[in-house]
């Protein structure tokens, strides 16, 4: 088990280098540099421009710039934002809780709906319910997030007026962040109505971001269940005289969950990329929106650092999922 964890952590280093190289190169491929965008449309005389570029170290050869960046990374220094002059790490961790909160809610939403839907669809294979679930899953999976988000906003915020359009909480409420998680902070603040407001702000983004994972989890649960329901041990469970609920919900599900857990782990990456769009649509002040804004400003250090930290998070979460996989599947647990 320990060896397993160590090898998985070992993969981190090449991944790190790959991610840094990619983001470093890609952000520089976009035309325009930070100085131009800082100054705006009025323009700047070439001498002053060159001077500012030199201050930022952008006049050095690319290889040297990369070396400077990567040696910083290995010392835990991701540099400072060109725009705000704040350390990238600090900015990241101020905004990170907002993204985590949204992602966790979206994942809970996807799991809480997707697994039961998949089980029921498998248990009633070929029924109207099965066909509806699978049809909905296919639609949800192929729905562009942007379009889907706008659609929901038009319906629930525009026409019905049930949910707010943007932000994490109504502007009426103000309190110092304690944990950075709005649900918890608003609860702790004790202000009447704050928590409800936070929840109402979360609903649409959660649904939008959770839709693709929901579709994937429902489909995977269904197919894993269908496979498992034909296994001999399910027949044994029936032969023991167990109630159908127990046969399906315990004996079959426990085995079907093994592939489902893997898929849930893989969805974490999908979730973060979806968060970029979702946060932009809903003006959700999280990492996704921050990275998009940073790209617009050509804030090289913020983009590089942000993506690197997100990649690290995804890798760590996947590692945790693999460990969970071992816990739930005894055959794996005893192998290592």
């Amino acid at each position, binding site marked *: 088990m320990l060896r397993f964890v160590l090898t998985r952590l070992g993969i981190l280093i090449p991944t790190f280098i790959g991610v840094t190289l990619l983001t470093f190169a890609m952000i520089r491929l976009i035309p325009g540099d930070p100085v131009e965008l800082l100054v705006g449309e009025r323009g700047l005389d070439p001498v002053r421009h060159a001077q500012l570029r030199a201050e930022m170290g952008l006049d050095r050869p690319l290889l040297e710039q990369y070396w400077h960046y990567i040696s910083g990374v290995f010392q835990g220094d991701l540099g400072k934002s060109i725009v705000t002059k704040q350390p990238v790490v600090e900015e990241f961790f101020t905004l990170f809780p907002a993204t985590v909160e949204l992602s966790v809610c979206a994942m809970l939403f996807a799991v809480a709906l997707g697994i039961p839907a998949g089980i029921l669809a498998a248990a009633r294979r070929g029924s109207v319910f099965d066909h509806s679930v699978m049809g909905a899953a296919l639609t949800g999976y192929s729905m562009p997030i942007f379009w889907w988000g706008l659609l929901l906003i038009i319906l629930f915020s525009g026409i019905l007026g049930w949910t707010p359009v943007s932000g994490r909480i109504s502007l009426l409420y103000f309190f110092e962040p304690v944990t950075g998680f709005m649900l918890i902070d608003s609860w702790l603040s004790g202000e009447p109505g704050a928590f409800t407001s936070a929840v109402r702000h979360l609903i649409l983004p959660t649904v939008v971001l959770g839709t693709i994972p929901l579709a994937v989890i429902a489909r995977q649960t269904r197919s894993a269940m269908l496979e498992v329901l034909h296994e*001999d*041990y399910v*027949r*044994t469970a029936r*032969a*023991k005289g167990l109630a159908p609920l127990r046969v399906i919900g315990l*004996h079959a599900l*426990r085995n079907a969950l093994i592939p489902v857990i893997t898929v849930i782990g893989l969805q974490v990456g999908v979730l973060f990329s979806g968060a970029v769009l979702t946060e932009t649509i809903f003006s959700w002040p999280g990492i996704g929106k921050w990275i998009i804004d940073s790209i617009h400003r050509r804030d090289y250090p913020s983009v590089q650092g942000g993506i690197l930290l997100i990649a690290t998070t995804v890798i760590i979460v996947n590692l945790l999922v693999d460990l969970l996989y071992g816990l739930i599947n*005894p*055959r794996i647990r005893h192998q290592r």
Partner: protein
Amino acid sequence: MALLEIENLSVTFGALRAVDGLDLSIDEGEVLGIVGESGSGKSVTMLAVMGLIGFPGIVKANAVRFNGAELMHLDRRARRNMTGKDIAMIFQEPMTSLNPCFTVGFQITETLKVHEGGSRSARRARALELLAQVGIPDPERRLNSFPHQLSGGMNQRVMIAMAISCRPQLLIADEPTTALDVTIQAQILQLLLGLQREYGMALVLITHDMGVVAETAQRVSVMYAGQLVEERAAAELFASPSHPYTHALLGALPERGRDRARLPTIPGVVPGLYDRPPGCLFNPRCTSARPDCAERVPPLETTHQGRVRCFYPLQASKTGV
């Protein structure tokens, strides 16, 4: 009174008649062997008795009586309360018949919990007792093992422990030794017979292996293409089979074919969905078939010795193989 009585049982999967008008009965404490080639409907018959035929299978019967109670009329819950308790079943593949995600102890005590309740510690004690009874060494440790940590033979012992945990009156063993090493096969059979005597339960032993039947069963039912073709006391059946199919099966027995270079097999295969012949289902493969065998369906005749479905049963004198 018979413990289990089946009258005119049919199981269909779409157009396929897996079991076709079967009558069968078994007495308390009796050992009944059911033999027949692959696909003849042995497993399906017993799964129907257990109430385990699911969609798309359809079970029909005039009666399936257990201890005088009509199983076909019981609601699902009452039926489940009997399944695994009064009638238990073990299967061919011990390695895949136990759930890989749960410990042996969990799987045994689960049956006890569902049917008998009792305290947790009482169930655990009973599980230990059962494991010892089926000959598993070091039961304390085995209780916490997962199926993949045990051999096929050990897993089959666990299956047996689970099946007998509620002291069933009828145990159905569907080819319990087929998947095991030859050396283990005999041990498992001995174990089953020992338990059968000890608990006084009836045992249905489904097998391909005529040798196994000869050593264990008191009575033998021979199935062919979903029908019962012959049923008699084991000793008589082996001495002088009446049905040509039984005769052919016995010819396929290794001991009898000792002096031949190769094991005789019966030419042809069991008819399936599309190739059911008219008349007697066995006639295309039968060595003693006459023209009218392909025209009329032979009924199951009751003779003083047993039952046989053949117009021209073999005479005792004719059957020195």
